[in-house]
């Protein structure tokens, strides 16, 4: 895994080509980012905004470090940009946060899908929220996590998750899939 950002003078593409091969970020288990406290099963009738707020609050409560309101604002600002909802039923709200040491994540399992106001034709069945450190060297990991979560939460797996009894069973299922 490699991440290069070069500023003027204009870089040589050869430099990139000959740079060391990308190192895979080994040992990144999505299940290790989750805990029963950060897996929510929101009740029916909630919209995207309220689920997002509950998820941000639970992740902040678990980490015990951050005030959730500014983080919620940051995620909501990101949500105004290019969509984070996929047609698999996965929504991936996220934000890069100054001063954060490690990735913090949480997940909402929606037994009844909710719609994304930005993409009304798509339904959200899983909302996976994460915050990552706002450092250039952490951006590759940030992107890899986005790819990894999108790859893991495919429709068949989402079906299984939404049928679980609660946070413990859902976490166990994620662990099992990653094993």
């Amino acid at each position, binding site marked *: 895994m490699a991440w290069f950002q070069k500023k003027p003078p204009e870089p040589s593409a050869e430099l990139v080509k000959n740079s060391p091969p990308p190192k895979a970020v080994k040992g990144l288990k999505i299940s290790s980012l989750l805990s029963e406290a950060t897996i929510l099963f929101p009740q029916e009738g909630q919209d995207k905004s309220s689920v997002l707020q509950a998820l941000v609050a639970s992740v902040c409560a678990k980490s015990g470090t951050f005030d959730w309101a500014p983080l919620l604002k940051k995620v909501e600002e990101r949500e105004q940009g290019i969509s984070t909802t996929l047609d698999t039923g996965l929504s991936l709200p996220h934000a890069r946060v100054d001063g954060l040491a490690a990735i913090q994540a949480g997940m909402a399992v929606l037994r009844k899908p909710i719609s994304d106001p930005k993409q009304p*034709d798509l339904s959200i069945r899983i909302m996976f929220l994460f915050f990552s450190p706002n450092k250039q060297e952490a951006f590759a990991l940030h992107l890899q996590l986005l790819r990894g979560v999108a790859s893991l939460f495919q429709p068949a797996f989402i079906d299984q998750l939404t049928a679980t009894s609660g946070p413990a069973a859902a976490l166990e299922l994620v662990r099992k899939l990653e094993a």
Partner: protein
Amino acid sequence: MLSFISFWRAAAIVLCDLASTAYYIGGIVEQAVGPSAPWFILGVMLFSYAIRYVYMESCSMFVRGGVYKVVKEAMGGKLAKLSASALMFDYILTGPISTVSAGQYLAGLLNTIFPYLRIDWHLDPHAFAVVFAIAATTYFWRENVKGIHESSDKALKIMQLTAVMGVIMIVWCGYTLWARGFTWPPLTLRFSTEGLGWAANVSWLKPVGAIGILMAFGHSLLAMSGEESLAQVYREIEAPKIRNLARAGIVIFIFSLLLTSLVSFFAVMIIPDSVRISQYGNNLLAGLAMSVVGPNWIRLLLQVFVVGVGVLILSGAANTSIVGANGVLNRLAEDGILVDWFRGLHKKFGTTHRLINMVVGLQILTILACRGDVYLLGEAYAFGVVWSFVFNTMAVMRLRFIKREAREFMVPGNIRINGVEWPLGLGAIFVLLFATASMNLLTKKVATVSGAAFTLVFFLIFVFSERWNEKVHSGLKALHAKFNLRQAHDLKIVSDEIEKPNRTLVAVRDPGNLHHLKRVLETFDEGTTDLVVFTSRIRTGLGLVDEVVNMDNEEQKLFTRVLDLAEKAGKTITPMLVVSNEPFYAITQAAQAVKATEVVFGVSAKISTDAQLERLAMTWGSLQTDKKPVRFRILGPGVEHAVDL
């Protein structure tokens, strides 16, 4: 990536157009044929069930159908162009009649409210309607140029609100009739001079009996204007498509039958004759709200609600008309009927802004010409719809004989004689449509003159544009041959043809932003790497599924520039064009299909490179089949980002 919609959403999109007529149909038809109008509106709404069958059969044959495609297949290009020209006339009128009607409702409401607020104003409803209509049309023009496509979610919400309003009105009006007693609207016809049109001068054409019924039926036909949108939404409906189209059709039928017919009956039965047309001719539902039983302030609140819902649904119909007209013109342009200049994309938003400008320009001219008179617009309306129904039904009937293969759906009422199936059901629908359309030619003077003139002008534009394009196309064919342009369905073939160990996919869009391609051309090793230069044509909203992928003007410019750069560098490239509704899905799928080892982009003017990479990572992850990492690079002047995903 294509996403499809449920039959509920499909029904909501069609109803935004079809059900909005409830707001003006009663007033228009009564001014033409007298207080028996509701019976004929009911007749038209019942007949719309049969028209639904015709659309189901045509859609079962052509997913990307519409009247142009169906008529072209059955009866050739000339009649297809004629029917599309007629349909354009109604799309142009749908916007003005909806926004002017909304303006009339608002003006009526404000004039009712002002005295309560001790404001000594009285708005001229016609002038206010013109100003409102132009403002609303300009708003939707801007939205469409920006590419904010018609959302099925918004349509669904509007229809839910309309349903609530419908239920309240039906219950309240029912109670009013129960409390006051009632008489049914008369069955006798009382044509106005305008309602008879030229038929008044034809001695043998008396407005009585079957002829009178046909005349009145023709005046009421605009009640089902919007039914043609079924063909537009069919492309978007999720599987099983025909069954879901049938379900959408039933929802549309029941909703419009209850709302449009019932409120027309209630209006005649509840609003006093003395004020119904004189005071509420242009805002009949507001008059109905003010005529039910109950304290004045509650009735006023009801009027506010009715007008609020009306403004929403009528505005939705105006937006649908711009989207629909743009869709039809795009379809024609793709078939080479319109010169490529019209398909030029907006530099910032990537929409076919010239087509949108033309449609909206014609709508604003119509608004100014009608001077806020809904009845005048109603008189002109429905020319295109009825003739496009006629052509469509005729085409479906002809296709029964020239394309005998099994269909997923057939209009019922078929009799097999000596091995030949005779479409009696279709025939009956055609006869009634043709008779009505022919009668309308005589009775609806404004529609005949303006509709025929407009249709002729559009038809001539299409004919001459097509000839012009044929000249240009001879050059275009050579360009295609030169490029050996690959399209979506060729993805697998391309993958098989390229054999070098490395494959680089370069995504291009703007001929003025090819810095990244230049960089790749300068450095890539032709001995070990195949270079695929890829662009995606983004289509959103109605008209999503594209079968015809010919290069348009912008794409020609783009690939000409790409070829110049490749020739300059002396490197071989494989150009590729894919149609999609989401650029990141298009890139991901193309990269997977050609088994790319590297994907290169330019810096976007609209999205930050971080956001580009984030969205790409998500899309790549959701679709990734091969776990082997691929390098993604974003190159721009002084900028280089690379990441392996």
